[in-house]
């Protein structure tokens, strides 16, 4: 809002008038105070002696970690396969559960906007807001440690994510096609199969691959709480301070993540 301001007789262009300028300064000040207060809390909870010591420790760890123990690789193939399975099967089961939830949550397909939609939305929010590591922690306590707990954790965590994106895609579909199918006298299920599903299929495939990529990243660390995969090896190596093995595992994880991102980008490029 360009403003004309008169100061000693001359007129100057200003971006904002006095009032909005003051409000902005006030907002910035409050923001800065909040940040500084947060920083003070963090600083109070920190042992600064350790922090000043950090460069030495980092150099020390780096020195120990540097030649990665390549021979350890032969023990990593199986955990890597487990990690892949956790991510892939987890995504698969998540999609199986996410599709009905998404149809129940989308405004245009839900059977009851008053009763069922809020339940579906609650499922989406609650599964989405809890990290897969927490799900894994919980499931390891319930189901016992292993790949199975990791898989279920990934599956539960992904339901909300997939269902949210999918129901947004369902709400954005072209209603003309649905009407055309309805006009032929199709039943509710036929409308769904011929009017809605073909329209959301590309979005569905995109979401599946996207989530699979995220799940690969997440499944690499699930082992830290005992839920199988390469994280288990990472935890073992960290606990025994076997830094060369840690380096190798980190390299492997990094490589896996890059490859999975590449695959997902390729597939999404092919779909869209």
């Amino acid at each position: 809002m360009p403003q004309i301001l008169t100061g000693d007789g001359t007129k100057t262009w200003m971006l904002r008038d006095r009032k909005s300028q003051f409000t902005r300064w006030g907002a910035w000040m409050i923001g800065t105070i909040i940040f500084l207060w947060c920083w003070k809390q963090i600083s109070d909870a920190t042992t600064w002696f350790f922090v000043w010591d950090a460069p030495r420790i980092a150099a020390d760890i780096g020195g120990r970690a540097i030649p990665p123990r390549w021979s350890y690789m032969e023990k990593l193939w199986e955990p890597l396969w487990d990690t892949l399975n956790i991510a892939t099967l987890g995504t698969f089961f998540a999609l199986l559960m996410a599709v009905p939830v998404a149809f129940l949550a989308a405004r245009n397909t839900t059977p009851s906007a008053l009763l069922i939609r809020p339940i579906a939305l609650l499922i989406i929010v609650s599964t989405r807001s809890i990290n897969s590591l927490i799900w894994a922690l919980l499931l390891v306590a319930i189901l016992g440690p292993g790949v199975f707990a990791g898989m279920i954790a990934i599956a539960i965590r992904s339901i909300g994510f997939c269902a949210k994106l999918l129901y947004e895609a369902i709400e954005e579909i072209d209603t003309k096609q649905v009407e055309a199918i309805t006009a032929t006298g199709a039943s509710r299920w036929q409308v769904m199969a011929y009017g809605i599903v073909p329209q959301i299929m590309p979005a569905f495939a995109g979401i599946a691959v996207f989530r699979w990529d995220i799940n690969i990243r997440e499944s690499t660390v699930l082992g830290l709480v005992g839920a199988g995969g390469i994280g288990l090896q990472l935890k073992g190596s960290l606990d025994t301070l076997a830094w060369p093995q840690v380096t190798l595992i980190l390299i492997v994880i990094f490589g896996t993540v890059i490859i999975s991102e590449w695959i997902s980008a390729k597939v999404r490029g092919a779909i869209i």
Partner: protein
Amino acid sequence: MSVALSERVGREWRKPPFIKRAWLRWALLIGAVVYFIAALSSLDVNWSRVYEGLERGWKFVVAFSSPDFSSRAADIKEGMIESAIMSIAATVVGIVLSVPVALGAARNIAPLPIYLICRGIVALSRALNEIIVAILLVAIFGFGPLAGFLTLSFASIGFLAKLLAEDIEDLDRSQAEAVKATGASWSQWINYGIQPQVMPRLIGLSMYRLDINFRESAILGLVGAGGIGATLNTAFDRYEFDTAAAILLIIIAVVMVLEYLSGIIRARVQ
């Protein structure tokens, strides 16, 4: 209509397949089946252990109906405040650091060497999982919220810089050129030609990242990097499912409120 429709038009209509190339469709299908058999056979599930665990699982579900907020109220409060502090501070630092990285990672602004360096930073920050970074930083800086704060800041840089850089690459060139044509210096060009165009997006992304940082801060405590995660972990270790349920409910509530707020803010600025 004595003759069936299919006889008149030749062949019946079929739904077109999603993947048009037949060989690719079959290859994917067979590959998926083979993979599933291999994966499921390597997945050994101890069903008796699972069966035993179901009772405990049921206890947890029951605990959700009677969450215990009171007996560890002090711990929960402390943990939540620490999580909030960590996520706010990390979001601020993340924004401040991600802006220059984003400018460098936008191909239409930055020269190639800077572009490559900034893209490298983004890729590194995104590829490393928060937990792994947190483990390393805890090993280096010691236990406490500082390690968590640094982890979240580092993760925020990659996230914000990538999405902001994409937005800068998509901006309207004519506005930026108009500012340049007035003889503006580089910083003026950025400030008046580019910043106003990406500001709404930056605000939206920052709110979204605050939300993510809070969610992530809930797990950093598992590896000793401060926040509510430590309290949660203790609750699980002691099988105090009612306290764990209370913490999870608080996390869900906070995330819902944040998501709602960020929705309002994003709708207002965009």
